[in-house]
């Protein structure tokens, strides 16, 4: 198939970017979206033009590195699908496709379609863990976890940290990402001890990193390639409120 592409080109974070148009003949329907970009880049190199920089790695939909806004949608038109797992059979011959990087204040553009998502790492570093010293853990079956709880924790833990939720949110909020991690760890008995601290520190880190507030647009859930639900945001809000209250009274006493 033949495609018309409009791609965001930006030299680095200090310069302004713009859309540039490219024509691409002979794209195989079985190719993935990123393979389509590979082919385009090969043609640009041949012509002596700088290829388009984009982030990608596993190309299996699990590493969370790919980050393209395709025709205005984070990860493109298919539900529950990362850009690397989007295949060209979902497009039509002669289509015009617009490709942009994630847009969010907390994710500055590094080059072309590559953005800096270290703000997510900062949120995890603030409290997205269970303190467990290496080598001294009790036998794994000493902490039975009811299957529904383990399953729900896994639903949250499936987050790949791609940042589509932030890119899709009109406020650039990281609530879905943060709540997924809080939800995963706070649900489990092993995570209970640090529950309050975790949620307070992670929310604080999220605000410090420059992410916006949640105003219940729900765009995050709509684009999430791992189908993390808004329920986790509600849960996090509850955990946060309880932690604040408990913290207040602990200090008072």
């Amino acid at each position, binding site marked *: 198939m033949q495609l018309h592409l409009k791609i965001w080109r930006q030299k680095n974070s200090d310069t302004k970017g713009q859309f540039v148009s490219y024509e691409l003949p002979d794209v195989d329907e079985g*190719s*993935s979206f990123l393979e389509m970009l590979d082919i385009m880049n090969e043609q640009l190199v041949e012509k002596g033009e700088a290829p388009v920089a984009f982030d990608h790695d596993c190309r299996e939909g699990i590493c969370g590195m790919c980050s393209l806004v395709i025709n205005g949608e984070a990860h493109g038109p298919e539900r529950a699908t990362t850009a690397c797992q989007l295949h060209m059979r979902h497009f039509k011959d002669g289509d015009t496709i617009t490709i942009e990087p994630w847009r969010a204040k907390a994710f500055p553009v590094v080059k072309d379609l590559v953005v800096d998502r270290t703000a997510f*790492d900062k949120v*995890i570093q603030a409290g997205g863990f269970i303190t467990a010293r*290496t080598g001294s853990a009790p036998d794994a079956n000493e902490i*039975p976890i*009811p*299957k529904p709880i383990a399953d729900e924790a896994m639903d949250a833990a*499936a987050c790949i*940290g791609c940042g589509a939720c932030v890119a899709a949110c009109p406020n650039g909020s990281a609530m879905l990402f943060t709540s997924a991690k809080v939800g995963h760890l706070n649900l489990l008995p092993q995570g209970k001890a640090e529950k309050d601290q975790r949620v307070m520190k992670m929310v604080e880190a999220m605000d410090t990193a420059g992410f916006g507030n949640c105003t219940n647009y729900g765009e995050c859930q709509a684009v999430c390639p791992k189908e993390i639900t808004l329920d986790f945001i509600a849960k996090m809000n509850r955990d946060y409120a309880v932690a604040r209250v408990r913290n207040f009274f602990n200090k008072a006493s």
Partner: protein
Amino acid sequence: MELNSNIPEGPMDQKWSLHKGKIKLVNPANRRKYHVIVVGSGLAGASAAASLAEMGYQVSCFCYQDSPRRAHSIAAQGGINAAKNYQNDGDSVYRLFYDTVKGGDFRSREANVHRLAEVSVNIIDQMVAQGVPFAREYGGLLANRSFGGAQVSRTFYARGQTGQQLLLGAYSQLSKQIGLGAVKMYNRHEMLELVLVDDDDGKQHAKGIITRNLVTGKIERWAGDTVVLATGGYGNVFFLSTNAQGCNVTAAYRAYKKGAGFANPCYTQIHPTCIPVHGEQQSKLTLMSESLRNDGRIWAPKDKAVAEKIRKGELKASDVAEDDRDYYLERKYPSFGNLAPRDISSRAAKEACDEGRGVASSGLGVFLDFRDAIKRLGKDTIAQRYGNLFDMYQCITGDNPYETPMMIYPAVHYTMGGLWVDYNLESNIPGLFVAGEANFSDHGANRLGASALMQGLADGYFVLPYTLGNYLGEQGIAKAGKITSDHPAFEAAEKSVRERIDKLLSIQGDESPRSFHQRLGKIMWDKCGMARSKQGLEEAIKEIQALRKEFWSRVKVLGDGDELNQELERAGRVADFLEFGELLCRDALMREESCGGHFRVEHQSMPNDPEVKEGLISEGEAKRDDENFAFAGVWEYMGDDVEPKLNKEMLTYEVVHMATRSYK
């Protein structure tokens, strides 16, 4: 090259505990004076960096991705083994050890494998304690399943995303240490050189690395008291593989060129259950978890004509009569059936396709059929067990596997070869430790399913924290932090990195790095893939040499060195693959036997062999030569365009005696 495996004295099941009791400790107050460099942030790198930091060492960790959470360990699907015997089905440390040694076709180091089996139980405890949501039974206890090559259910899993959950676990521990300031994390940094410094013992010790900041292009020097490489495998030398796009051999290969031995590079695991290649524009292969083999039945049409009709789309797989199907694994290996080990299953698929019975449009595919399982267990149960894998398959191929059987074909997956290490995971360069897939020791010629995650975490959480301390303890506190990056060795290493980058940018030829990579991959797969021959390998070596020359005169790298330049990154990695591919072929040529993931067509069981006559194995199976090849082949760099030297570490088996692998 001195290759002392440093296997501790004592009975096999006590070696590790006796060794731990004897090795040197570093006083907690002194640990902060040592600086440890960890390259790579996958299971091995992240767990090592987190544990060492928690112990009090200063740690710097480097990865080429934008975050340590993206290391390729994240893509492992199926599970992690541990000898917990929670299922009461007769598992034990000994049995896991035995299966791993046998599965590796007697080319791994027995003592390392035993330790791996021992610490496997601690890994599960550790990961559960830090919140990995493994699958549970309704009673709240951990669930297990069986996995390729094993007759017991010892595999722990988190849906089809086990690698992801384990990596996120290790990453969370690493993140905690980063937050505390105990680990300094350098994302988007690529290690391009290892720095060796002369010590007063007359040896050169690993004391630092040179990196390129992939965003700014800045070349930087990092000095440390010891260096850990946990940089994964080199499967991407084949271009098409299940590896992430960024996986590369550069860090390990730089170490090799500085004198580290490279062991068994020809041991490449070809994974039996991948989605077949669809066309020329393809950039990678996707693996379907091997757990699918628990319930899926693998078959190819008995008749070539039927296969051809399927290829042309004239016949649907579901319309093929039961009598016309060949469930070849169940037929050839009745006791293991569809769970036969990976090398055996892969070769059996190739055989069926070579006979003209393949089914994908390319003829390179066989069926993995859930029809009977769905009939037996119901669609819901199958969806619960494998739903995400089925969705993934449908997303890639457009076919619905609940209705029509999946198509699979083997693809390059994991590499068992790697830098040579002793029992302490130290290479022959003092102070250079190598962990996870980047080392060679634990899987022999073939890796069993669900044991890669186990090894990565074992090395990082439970081995290096002891053995690395032993090295530092032996060095003595007086040496801590003494070497700084203004040492002349750093200057020389930095200069060579700059020259290499300048050279790549100056050629300005007419062919892209990717195109060279593709050409290399084709040579590798055709002549050093699932089956290898003397003639093919000799041709491959010549072709790679010619291709390398062409690369250095015709490669075209656009852009500059001082910016984010993905073409330059790729060019550097391809340049190393172009040298390493030759080394891999040389190793394959040297090894006049077939074992595990290494199949030399000249060495296969013949109709007249006693084992075949006795019915122990079929004809056409891999034929080892224990008399002449029971060694790890360790290559020593002798100079550019000079033949490398082969060194041997003889492998002896005290406990599991070498025997013919039979899965009949």
